[in-house]
């Protein structure tokens, strides 16, 4: 095998979730099951990924498309280290930063500035690094003086802008992007894309999950198509998108409408 130049390599990766019917969430239920003593088939295994293999060379922008529930987000979470694959080999060479559902670590009562610190630390920065990056994070997010107000007073747009700004300030080797580019107003979206483009030019690896085939075509060097946990295409953006559109049986419209909040 040797030392690979791949940023990410999956070999026959399976992710199994145990879907438990009536999971004994409370002790009473656990006792009840224990008493009955027959381990009734209260769960079944659900394969979110059924043996996926691919690799992403350093510096590539990889797109992942597929219908809801096809395993896209699961795949991204395995790369991010949130899930541990049930079987197969996963190799991730380099630091990763997730742009997965931004603002997960934000606390509503805390100010923007306080949240920048906590989120930055959660994403693996040191306190000194966060402090060094803080001015540029605030500037990029266009939050202005609201930075010292609790984030619960922010509009959704401001919230998302701040979250994006923190997450991308981390400067990872591998950037994981999950469906976030439908946030904010048009002007800010352009800024987001510019920043992602800058990542690309800086030779970083980007893995982008999206429903928006235009975005995928515009940004990606290569695209994976997932369907029911299986890899059905690993191809050029045009071919992959075509495959995907055939899969969903209808040409995709102009992507998911941007959600705008004021």
């Amino acid at each position: 095998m040797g030392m690979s130049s791949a940023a990410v390599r999956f070999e026959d990766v399976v992710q199994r979730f145990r879907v438990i019917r009536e999971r004994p969430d409370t002790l009473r239920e656990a006792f009840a099951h224990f008493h009955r003593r027959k381990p009734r088939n209260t769960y079944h295994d659900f394969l979110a990924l059924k043996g996926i293999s691919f690799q992403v060379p350093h510096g590539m922008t990889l797109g992942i498309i597929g219908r809801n529930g096809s395993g896209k987000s699961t795949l991204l979470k395995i790369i991010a280290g949130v899930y541990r694959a049930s079987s197969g080999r996963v190799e991730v060479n380099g630091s990763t930063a997730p742009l997965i559902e931004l603002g997960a670590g934000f606390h509503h009562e805390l100010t923007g500035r306080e949240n920048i610190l906590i989120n930055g630390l959660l994403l693996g920065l040191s306190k000194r690094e966060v402090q060094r990056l803080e001015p540029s994070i605030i500037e990029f997010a266009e939050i202005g003086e609201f930075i010292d107000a609790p984030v619960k007073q922010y509009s959704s747009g401001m919230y998302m802008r701040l979250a994006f700004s923190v997450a991308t300030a981390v400067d990872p080797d591998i950037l994981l992007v999950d469906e976030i580019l439908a946030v904010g107003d048009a002007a800010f979206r352009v800024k987001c894309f510019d920043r992602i483009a800058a990542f690309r030019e800086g030779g970083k690896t980007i893995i982008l999950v999206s429903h928006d085939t235009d975005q995928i075509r515009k940004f990606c060097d290569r695209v994976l198509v997932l369907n029911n946990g299986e890899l059905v295409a690993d191809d050029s953006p045009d071919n992959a998108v075509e495959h995907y559109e055939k899969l969903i049986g209808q040409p995709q419209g102009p992507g998911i409408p941007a959600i705008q909040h004021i």
Partner: protein
Amino acid sequence: MFELVRDTYRYRELIWALAVKELRVRYKRSVLGFLWALLNPLLMMIILTLVFGSLMRFSIDHYAIFLLSMLLPWTFFSQALSYSVESVVGNAQLLKKVRVPQLVFPIAAVVANIINFLLSLIPLALIIVALRFPLHWTWVYLPIPMAGLFLFTLGTAFFFAAINVFFRDVSHIVQILLSAWFYGSPIIYSLDFIPKKYHLLFRLNPMLYVLNGFRLSIYYGILPTAQSSAMSLACGVAAVAIGFALFRRYQDVFVYYV
């Protein structure tokens, strides 16, 4: 154990930030803010002192201080546990999205309460002075029972935070357990009140050893024996060893259950 020390050091900035966040959120939106960390125990102690100092006369001299010397560390233990038991489940959204070292959550909950506890020693000293009770030199010994107490709390926190991921009743059970444990430990009374034949039973309670040093140093003004200090630290280390072993064993699957 080594892993625990290494990771605590590695994530010290994150742990500290989360602990400060916890306190900030607790005191946010209140006019007096952080002052409550001092005022709250002070007011509680004044009430207790009034009740036990003038209304009810116990055969124990300066009962209020007798009580407070153990009630403060107990309150710390009980609050830290109540917070930490929910600490993993409460951060579910985060765990599902970012890879975070799960152990920072119970540790941060305990650290936040340590800060609170240390602050509450200030009003205690004030009350002692106000009551003209001697402020014994043995206070300087307090870091040793504190080490035992903090370790014991941390171990218990890991233990219950982990089980609570799988059985949500644990947070309710912990409340009941705490209240039983409170009355079962010689906090509001002295072990001397208990008939000798039950002493053996009381000696099975680790809290006895963990809290003992506080009353000896603050109220009696005597140093605990080396043996007693060793017992307190041993209870702390044992609790951490058991609690962290359990937490570590299951932390990788937390994300599927939260």
